[in-house]
Structures are given as structure tokens and as C-alpha cells.
């Protein structure tokens, strides 16, 4: 009985115990906040890296002759974990305003803005297998939105702003809302896309003839990924083939996999199925495509683990110091307790209990304050910024509008629990010393 009772009296009667609790609490709190922010950053970074990439992408190795798109899609769709697949044609191009003179690539800035990746897609298949529908729906300004999200490439002739082009039977294209708004383009405007046709590559020693085609903008899209949006144009897959004269039916197959399926397993099985069907292809998950960056993200987690070890070391040092000090101050009490009939084990348990009290209260304090602070970190940031007139979080640097936070309660409890266990374990050393003290020596202690 006296162990818990006296431990409570010893612990809560001493200001240094409260200091230790606060120190442990602050360490746990800081770690939880750092972990929550880091997790938020990691989640945002993964989302950023994933971008508009499908779960799995199939890259047909079409060295001798183009593969049949239907065959590729059929083999892919036969896999039980595949919930959708759509073929895309991909071609780099430069674009220019219709009837505004020649393409001038006078400097690196303009050249960058003129380069785009043109994706030839089947709108119906894209709507089924990718997030194409949300890209179209997420356009913020209605003046850039497509008129019919189920048939995004459709555009009534009356919408074509240049009257002379209305009866030219021109194909349509989708440009991102970001590009359209920054370049002053509107729905119904015409652009020209210029690329190198497949045939030109076969003309050894002869001049390359660029393939140029005028497209009317049927509207915009918004994937939320700036880097993707500022350099991507969607056109209809059949128009794509006519535009650049390619015999290929698919540059890549975007594959949507069922929720919870193991992407690596599906990738390997798809690769095997395509090999069996005499359609050898490279198959990559989205993580394969970004493995270097994702490796860096994982490395951040390892750094966090190292930081956690340092925090744990700090907490253990604090608790050890406080408890050693307490034992030193209570040597005579140990003698008194022995004289009253306390055993060495009882005395040791008493001081270990002091450590448990300090660590538990500190850990709980840190867990609660850390979780609350992580939840309200952006409010705290705003308060600091308005109070001191400084910018704590630079949006331009991180490309996030606010500090990203992802709170993992299980992980936070784990951090607090590990800290408490670490502190309690280190307390056993001074507690053991207390237990070993000779009663007579303790009574004579000055």
C-alpha cells in the first residue's frame, strides 16, 4: 500500500517532478506534432507523385509491328482484379495560336510554354477507367468547362468563335483550365498542334515534315496537378492517329485495379498474361514509376525514427536525473522505511512507481496536447503570423495552401506508450540503487 501512496506523495510534492512531467510532455507533444506534419507532407507528396498516373500502366513493346489495341485491352481486362482499362496514344508536340504567324521559340521560357504532351484518348473508356470525369467536373470557372461531360469532345458549331472555321470540320481538343486562363484562351478558340509524323522517321536522309492540325478547344479540365495540367492536351484517339499518321493503336494502357488488390502481384500477373498472349509489354505500378522519389519519402520516415530515438533519449535522461535526485534526497527516508519494516523490494518499487507516475502523467499530457496542437496547427500558425507579422509557412515553397497534417492516433499512442515505457525502464536503475541501500547507512545519512 505504502509504495503507491508514498510514491504519489513524493512525486506530487516536488516541483522538479512537475518539471520532468512537462519536459516529457513537451517532448511527446513535439514528436506527435512533427510526426503528424511529416505524415501530412508524405501523404501530400505521395498524392503529388501519383498525380494522374493510373494504378498500373502497360507499355507495349511494339518493335516490329503495332499491337492490336483490342487484344491488349482484352488481355488486361481478363485479370480478375482489373476493374477498367483504356488505351492511350501519346505524342510530344508544340502548339500555337491559330493564324498568329509562325511558332517562335525565341527563348527558353516561351519554348517551355509551347511544349505539350498530346494524349489521344477514347472519352467513353476514359470515363469508365480513370478519373477523367472528375477532371472535367473539377473545372472551377464555367467558361472553361466542357458543354457535355459525357461527350467532352462535342462542340456545337455555334460555339466556334472564328466563324470562318465553323464549317471546316475541325477536330476538338481539351486544354487544362490552368493553360486556358493563363494564355487567354476560351472554349471555341482554335489552336494548332504540331508534331513529327511517324512516316517522317522512315525517310532516311530527307527533311522531316511536321504534321500540323488545327483543333478547336471544346473546353478545359482540371486534375489539380499543376505540372501535369500546364503541359497536357487531350484529343480524340482517332483524330490523334489521323493527325500524326501513326499506325499504332496504343502507346500505353491505363489500368484501374480493384480497391485493396496487391498492385505488385497484379503487375506481375499482367506481365505474364501479356507475354503468354505474344504481346510482350513493360508493366509498371505507379509506385514503380516514382520509385526514386518514393524511396526518398520512405527515407523521411527513417529520419523520423532517428529523431524519435533522440527524443526518447532526452526523456530517459530527464526521468533518470529527476529520479536519481529524488533517491539522493530520500536516502534517510529509505532508512526510516526499513526501520518501519519495509523490504528492499518495497523500497525499490516505491521509487520505480515515482518514475511511472512522472512518465505516465508526462506522456498523457504530451499525447493530449500534441494531438490538439496537430489538429489546430494551422490556427496556431495563423495566430503566430498575425501576432508577429512573420510568415511561418511559405505556400510558394511547398505548393500547399496550408500545413498538411495527417494524424495517426494509433501511432501517436504508440509514441506516448514507448516514451512512457522507456522512461519507466530507465527509472529502474535509480530504483534498484535505492533498494540496495543499507538501512543503517541510510539512517546515518546527513
Amino acid at each position: 500500500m505504502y509504495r503507491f501512496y508514498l510514491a504519489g506523495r513524493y512525486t506530487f510534492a516536488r516541483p522538479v517532478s512537475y518539471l520532468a512531467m512537462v519536459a516529457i510532455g513537451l517532448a511527446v507533444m513535439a514528436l506527435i506534432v512533427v510526426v503528424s506534419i511529416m505524415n501530412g507532407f508524405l501523404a501530400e507528396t505521395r498524392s503529388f507523385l501519383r498525380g494522374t498516373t493510373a494504378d498500373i500502366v502497360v507499355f507495349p513493346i511494339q518493335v516490329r509491328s503495332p499491337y492490336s489495341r483490342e487484344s491488349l485491352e482484352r488481355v488486361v481486362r481478363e485479370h480478375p482484379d482489373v476493374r477498367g482499362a483504356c488505351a492511350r496514344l501519346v505524342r510530344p508536340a508544340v502548339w500555337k495560336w491559330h493564324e498568329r504567324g509562325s511558332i517562335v521559340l525565341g527563348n527558353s521560357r516561351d519554348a517551355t510554354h509551347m511544349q505539350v504532351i498530346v494524349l489521344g484518348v477514347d472519352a467513353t473508356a476514359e470515363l469508365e477507367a480513370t478519373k477523367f470525369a472528375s477532371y472535367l467536373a473539377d473545372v472551377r470557372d464555367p467558361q472553361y468547362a466542357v458543354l457535355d461531360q459525357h461527350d467532352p469532345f462535342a462542340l456545337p458549331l455555334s460555339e466556334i468563335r472564328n466563324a470562318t472555321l465553323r464549317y471546316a470540320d475541325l477536330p476538338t481538343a481539351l486544354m487544362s483550365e490552368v493553360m486556358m486562363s493563363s494564355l487567354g484562351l476560351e472554349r471555341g478558340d482554335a489552336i494548332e498542334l504540331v508534331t513529327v509524323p511517324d512516316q517522317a522517321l522512315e525517310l532516311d536522309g530527307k527533311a522531316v515534315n511536321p504534321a500540323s492540325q488545327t483543333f478547336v478547344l471544346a473546353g478545359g479540365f482540371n486534375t489539380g496537378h499543376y505540372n501535369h495540367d500546364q503541359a497536357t492536351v487531350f484529343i480524340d484517339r482517332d483524330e490523334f492517329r489521323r493527325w500524326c499518321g501513326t499506325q499504332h493503336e496504343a502507346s500505353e494502357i491505363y489500368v484501374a485495379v480493384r480497391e485493396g488488390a496487391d498492385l505488385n502481384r497484379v503487375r506481375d500477373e499482367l506481365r505474364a498474361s501479356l507475354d503468354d498472349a505474344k504481346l510482350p509489354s513493360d508493366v509498371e505500378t505507379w509506385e514503380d514509376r516514382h520509385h526514386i522519389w518514393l524511396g526518398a519519402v520512405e527515407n523521411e520516415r527513417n529520419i523520423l525514427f532517428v529523431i524519435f530515438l533522440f527524443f526518447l533519449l532526452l526523456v530517459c535522461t530527464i526521468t533518470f536525473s529527476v529520479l536519481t535526485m529524488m533517491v539522493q534526497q530520500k536516502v534517510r527516508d529509505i532508512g526510516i522505511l526499513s526501520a518501519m519494516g519495509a523490504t528492499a523490494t518495497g523500497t525499490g518499487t516505491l521509487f520505480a512507481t515515482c518514475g511511472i507516475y512522472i512518465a505516465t502523467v508526462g506522456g498523457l499530457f504530451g499525447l493530449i496536447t500534441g494531438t490538439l496542437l496537430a489538429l489546430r496547427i494551422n490556427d496556431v500558425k495563423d495566430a503566430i503570423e498575425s501576432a508577429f507579422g512573420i510568415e511561418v509557412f511559405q505556400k510558394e515553397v511547398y505548393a500547399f495552401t496550408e500545413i498538411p497534417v495527417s494524424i495517426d492516433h494509433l501511432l501517436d499512442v504508440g509514441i506516448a506508450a514507448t516514451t512512457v515505457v522507456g522512461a519507466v525502464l530507465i527509472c529502474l536503475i535509480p530504483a534498484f540503487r535505492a533498494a540496495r541501500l543499507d538501512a543503517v547507512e541510510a539512517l546515518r545519512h546527513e
Partner: protein
Amino acid sequence: MSELAAQPAVAGQARAGEVVLAARGLVRGYRMGREQLAVLSGTDLELRRGESVAIMGRSGAGKSTLLHALGLLDRPERGSLAILGTETTKLRRGARAALRNRQIGFVFQFYHLIPELSALDNTLLPWRITLSPLQWFGQRRQLLVRGRELLAELGLGDRQRHRPSQLSGGERQRVALARALITSPSLLLCDEPTGNLDERTSEVIADLLFQVGARRQHTLVMVTHDRELAARASRCLLLSEGRLHAMDASQHP
């Protein structure tokens, strides 16, 4: 019979005339650098229930060492020591602690109270040590009554909630006495109980020691330099060269 009184004593309560303490040939020394210093060299002592003995001797003669050995805080190198018929020198540490808790009460010169506890909580400390949490909460009400009654008996009825730092030296020593008596031990060991008090307060403490001892039939062993206090004991012994010798307290220098 109250529930507390029914608590089984570790070695059984002493009956009238029974030998409470029997020490034979106790030997205890200390190593001082390269020299072995003999403090107790064959000390004998036998005490019966209700008897009081004062042990005198010059500083460094080994009085406190003897008291610590008799109180089972220290283990003699040789000799035998029986408390209520139980030979203690071969007992394990836990059994010695239990015997100390229930049959031996200590009163120290410097009170040795726990500063974080009130007078009442200090008094009840031996019970807290011996009882499990369940036992404590089961008997808490009775124990509190008993502690309050004991403090009131020692003149501290209105000081029960005070901490040691809020008490005078005499009051602290009375709390220490209450703590020593709370488990109704058979043996009360006092190490210069008035050594840190003024003359008048010393008299009060001495009166309490002997009055309560007479009422409760404790066996009292008291180490002191105070001849008047020693003269009140039924026997007075001089510790010299590691052995106890009968003496007349009034003749001791």
C-alpha cells in the same frame, strides 16, 4: 476484540514475564581502512516483558550499533539474537522486515519523520507498510481512529493534520513515539530520544515513554547520555569494550 487486535503478530505477542529479547555473544565490527574495528565483542542481553533498560557509554562505544542489531536493521557477524523466541540471525530479509514491522518500534534522536506526510499519516506508516491496498481500505476507518486516539493520548489531538515542518521538536518526537507504538510492538528501541530536545521537553518525552510503557507493558531499550533519564529505567547498562556491564546511572560521569 477489534479487528486490528485480532491481526496475527509475526512472532506472537509477549506474555507477562516472557523473554522478549535474548542476545548471546553478539559480535559486530567495521573495517576502517586496513584496520578491523571491533564494536561489539560478545555482547549479551536478556529482556523480559515490561522491563526497561538504559544503555550508556562514551561516544563511539557502539551503542547505536547494538541498537541497530537488536532492531534487526543490522546483522551481527556472530552470536544469536532471539525476539519472542524466534532466532533472527538466520532469518531471511523479508521475515526480518516483517518481524521489525510488527514487534519492534523505533524512536530516533532526530525524529526521522517523513516530511511529506502529516502527523497522522506518519503515525500510520507502519500499518501502510504491512497491509496490502485491499487490507488497508478494508480497515482504514478503524486505523484512522486508532491513530487519532494514540496521537491524542500523546497530547497531539489538535496537531494531526500538521506536517513535521509545522511541529516543534517535542511534538515531532511525540509523533515519532506514536509511530513506534501504533502496531503495539513488544520491543521499543529508542536512540537518544531526548538528545535533541531542551530540558523541559525532554522531561515530557521521558514521562510519556515510561508512562505509556508502563501501561502497554512494552519492553524498552534506550540508548542515552542523559543520566536522569537512564535512572528511570529498571536497569542501567554500560557498553564498554564491546560488552555490557551493569552500572548505577547516578555514578556514570
